[in-house]
């Protein structure tokens, strides 16, 4: 399988320049929500492969396993019922880390090496380096990273990097019974997606499209939606980007702060050299 080279592209909180120079294709997951039956094989395939303990759940009146992903549950099918002029729909979408091209989590992370992005596009958390600060949870526009109350570190989909490295596809993709999930290079999968979108448009879904939001540098999850004009129906933000607060902090504010702090220290030094100390009028001070 191409793209199994685990060379680093980005490292969180690292001053180092991008270490990877090899020309490796970006890998991606393909999710066709129009052929997903919401069977949840991917949910447990993920847990089973990653040896994640089961969560305690309750039936609250939905087929959805739980309201959100958790530190032990990285892959959730979101169910939603929707009715419009075209009839009744029951949407199911596999929700997990989108492996953004420009990952907000990585950008927000203050711990060197706690979040890395490989040249093949996989964004992976290194719990050994994670300090549990939760900045990634603020940086992620998809609400993916989840803090484990047990280890106080953050977890999410690894795209089964251990499998991918030896040429196996991620556990969720392999499990998928209907073939609505595929794995490959993003380039190939965008082609597959484009074809499927054409097919959907021909069969009446005029708003069919691919969800690959540019606001986060594109994602390594290529999602086909029958109603791409309304991604919210599937629980997807319509135009996600790294939160302004985070990007502002990480660039202008940080520079401003650096200048201010260093400037402050330098200014005091100059001040002292020029004006020296203030002395009391008496001799004892």
């Amino acid at each position, binding site marked *: 399988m191409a793209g199994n080279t685990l060379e680093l592209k980005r490292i969180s909180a690292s001053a180092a320049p991008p270490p990877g120079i090899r020309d490796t294709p970006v890998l991606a997951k393909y999710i066709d929500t129009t052929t997903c039956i*919401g069977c*949840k094989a991917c949910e*447990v395939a993920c847990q089973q492969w990653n040896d994640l303990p089961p969560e305690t759940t309750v039936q609250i*009146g939905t087929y959805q396993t739980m309201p959100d992903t958790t530190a032990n549950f990285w892959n959730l099918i979101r169910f939603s019922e929707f009715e419009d002029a075209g009839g009744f*729909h*029951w*949407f199911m979408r596999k929700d997990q880390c989108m492996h953004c091209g420009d990952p907000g989590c990585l950008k927000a992370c203050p711990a060197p090496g706690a979040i890395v992005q490989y040249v093949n596009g996989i964004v992976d958390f290194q719990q050994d380096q994670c300090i549990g600060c939760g900045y990634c949870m603020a940086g992620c526009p998809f609400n993916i990273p989840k803090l484990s109350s047990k280890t106080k570190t953050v977890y999410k989909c690894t795209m089964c990097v251990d499998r991918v490295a030896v040429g196996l596809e991620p556990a969720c993709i392999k499990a998928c019974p*209907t*073939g609505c999930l595929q794995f490959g290079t993003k380039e190939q999968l965008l082609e597959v997606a484009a074809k499927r979108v054409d097919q959907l448009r021909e069969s009446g879904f005029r708003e069919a499209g691919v969800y690959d939001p540019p606001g986060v540098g594109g994602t390594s999850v290529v999602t086909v939606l029958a109603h791409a004009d309304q991604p919210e129906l599937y629980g997807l933000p319509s135009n996600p980007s790294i939160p302004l607060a985070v990007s502002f902090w990480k660039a202008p504010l940080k520079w401003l702060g650096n200048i201010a702090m260093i400037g402050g220290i330098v200014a005091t030094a100059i001040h002292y050299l020029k004006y020296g100390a203030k002395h009391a009028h008496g001799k004892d001070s």
Partner: protein
Amino acid sequence: MASLAATFGRGAMTNGWTDIANADVILAMGGNPAENHPVGFRFVMDAKRNRNAKLISVDPRYNRTSAVSDSFTQIRVGTDIAFLGGLIHYALTQNRYHAEYVRLFTNATFLVTESYAFDEAAGLFSGWDTAKKAYADKSSWSYELDAQGFAKIDATMEHPRSVFQLMKKHYARYTPEMVSRICGCKPEEFVRAAELITSTFKPDKAGTILYALGWTHHSSSVQLIHTAAMLQLLLGNMGIAGGGLNALRGHANIQGGTDCGMGYHNLPGYVAIQKAGHQSLKTFIDAVTPKPLRPNAMNFYSNTDRFVVSQLKAFYGKAATRENDFAYHLHPKLPESAPGVDENWSWAYIFDHMFQGRMEGLISYGMNPVSNGPNSRKVLSGLSKLKWLVVAENFEQETAAFWKPNILELVGKKPADVQTEVFLLPAANFAEKDGTFTNSARWIQWKWKAIDPPGEALADQEITARIFLRVRELYAAEGGRQAASVTNLNWWYSNPSKPSMDEVLKEINGWAIQDIKDEKDPKTVVLKAGAQLGKFLDTRADGSTLCGNWLYIGCYPEAGNLTQRRNTADPSGLGAHPNWSFNWPANRRIMYNRCSADGAGKPWDASRPVLSWNGEKWVGDVPDFKPDSAPANTPAGTHDAGMGAFIMLPEGVARLFVPGQFAEGPFSEHYEPVEAPIPNPLHPSQSSNPAVKPFTTEFDKLGEAAEYPIVCTTYRLTEHFHYWTKNNPYNMQLQPEFFVEIPEELAKEKGIANGGKVKVTSARGSIEGKAMVTRRIKPMTVGGKKVYQIGFPIHWGFLGKGKQQGSLANLVTPTIVDPNSFAPEYKGFLVKLEKA
């Protein structure tokens, strides 16, 4: 399965999982394949993706299959015959049927006796005895025969008593408006669906039907499936790639279990069980060997004697000799309870007999009757009357633990009241033993043992063998009644208490005891003594061959154990994979494949050829036909197109009209479920199936619509398997609790909130759980009345991981069974709903 066998000759999925990808139109009805067979559903999605196939979902609920369908029609539970009858009517009146196919391959051309009639007002066929309330005389449900005993035909199908004309007349009542009145869908919705479904009448279009327990769990299930079979025949969809009537079985080896005779009514290989009237081997063989009804019918079951004798040799070995009728006397016969009335020992009857105190013991291998039902309380009550119960299982389950106070209190008893001795034997699971499973598509596949069972658990075959051997020792030592049957059983295995599955499979396939000679040329030895049988006709009726199950012949020939084959090649590109495992019968992937070609042997659809005549023989899939029998040169369109395509039936063609095999008539008719919200709009005086005989115990109460106004159905979820995965933490996490799906409007009426607690009560019992309020089930108007449907899944009980709150779905289901298959009506009954 009873229906498929009577219509086509064999009771199994006709095509196969991989073949579904070849379809142009897929009707999912009476099943929710996305939910229950998600991996098999892959091929539906492949068909959609790769050939733009259309998926049509017809169901009481908008379900997971509907979510990815191109068309969804909601119908009322138990009205499938009306819908399918409407489709037949639509196809016939709109000229959307494959006329030539119908002429060639079905009994549409056959003439029916003059005495046959159907009283439309009464809803009854000829032969009904009003006093006995039964079909006392089924003789009118037959063909008009000529002097040689062959059925008369009219190739033009215009004779008023031709099956074709009678069928047309019979279904003329099933107009879109009538369908709407019965099923609750709008007429235009029906017509839209009908147009799509019948679009495959063109020779180069293939349509398949996927159904499962949603059809078999009804009081008219056999007729219902027959109606679907008729539709597929009219559309020319049988025997072709991407066609067929695909029964999706519910368990890993339910097909194999049936094939191997685990049913009270037949022997391994589907030969009917010996009955009391068959006191000699000859009377038995005569009774179970059909006579051909057309000169061109192969009538393969004329070979039944070979299969029966070879099986007796397998059972009784050396004790079975030509002189003693191959030990025929050692085999039990099915008793008659009254003249002409066979005792019935099918599932629901077993528990009725048990409840009536007619049984002392039960051995259960991995079965959980308390949960499986129907009517859990009746089952519980029955079990409590047993002297002994043996359960071999992986996990402790409700049946083995039925005497525990929290379960027994369902029937108001205490452990001290129950004198049943219970043995719970730890059994190996699938991974801990080898052997073969037969899947829905009839693939017999070997699985390899991966690991030893935990603790002291033993493989089932070892449990079986050890029990049997100990009983035999006792009979050998102490004697006893009919001891000869026990002591003479052919238990030849190298390790008798732990029979090797390889040896047993060899026996199932069978071998030559002596040298087998060519039947035409007695000098040629075709099979040496000791050699494994290679084909059906290697068997002999003279005791020179031994074969446990003729249907599986070929799976273990001299070449070795073909069920272990793992060659993935697919030369035809149609998903046949001919060298992967072994596909009964005779490694055929698509049954009745002769129908994939026209009268001259040319495939109807050149792009999907299954079989074609090359001038000398049939090539392609393993022909379901005599391989060298030429198609007739008679012009296409006449009936006589060479040998009949359905070799298992005495007609040589498939049955649209079923001459006497079914209890309620030769054609199907819509009858309401036994518990129905409205009287039958077609004939209110005969609302439900006239052949159904309800049980009469105090646990078999039936509810009326006045008290129980809501229609209820039961089903499975994809997250669970039956009552097993409640022991798995992961699966319990996916679906933690019992819930009831309730239409939004009904919930509002009753003040029920999503996620709140509700109680469902039927005449048999009640069950509580969480409410799932949804728009996926909509209220409907049927017969002029507004009707609500609700439903719930079955998977929880008393034992397992997570919260097990005693929510046995079958506490409310009725013990009403189909009069042919004896399958219970789990899928349609009446309840009332309350906020709990």
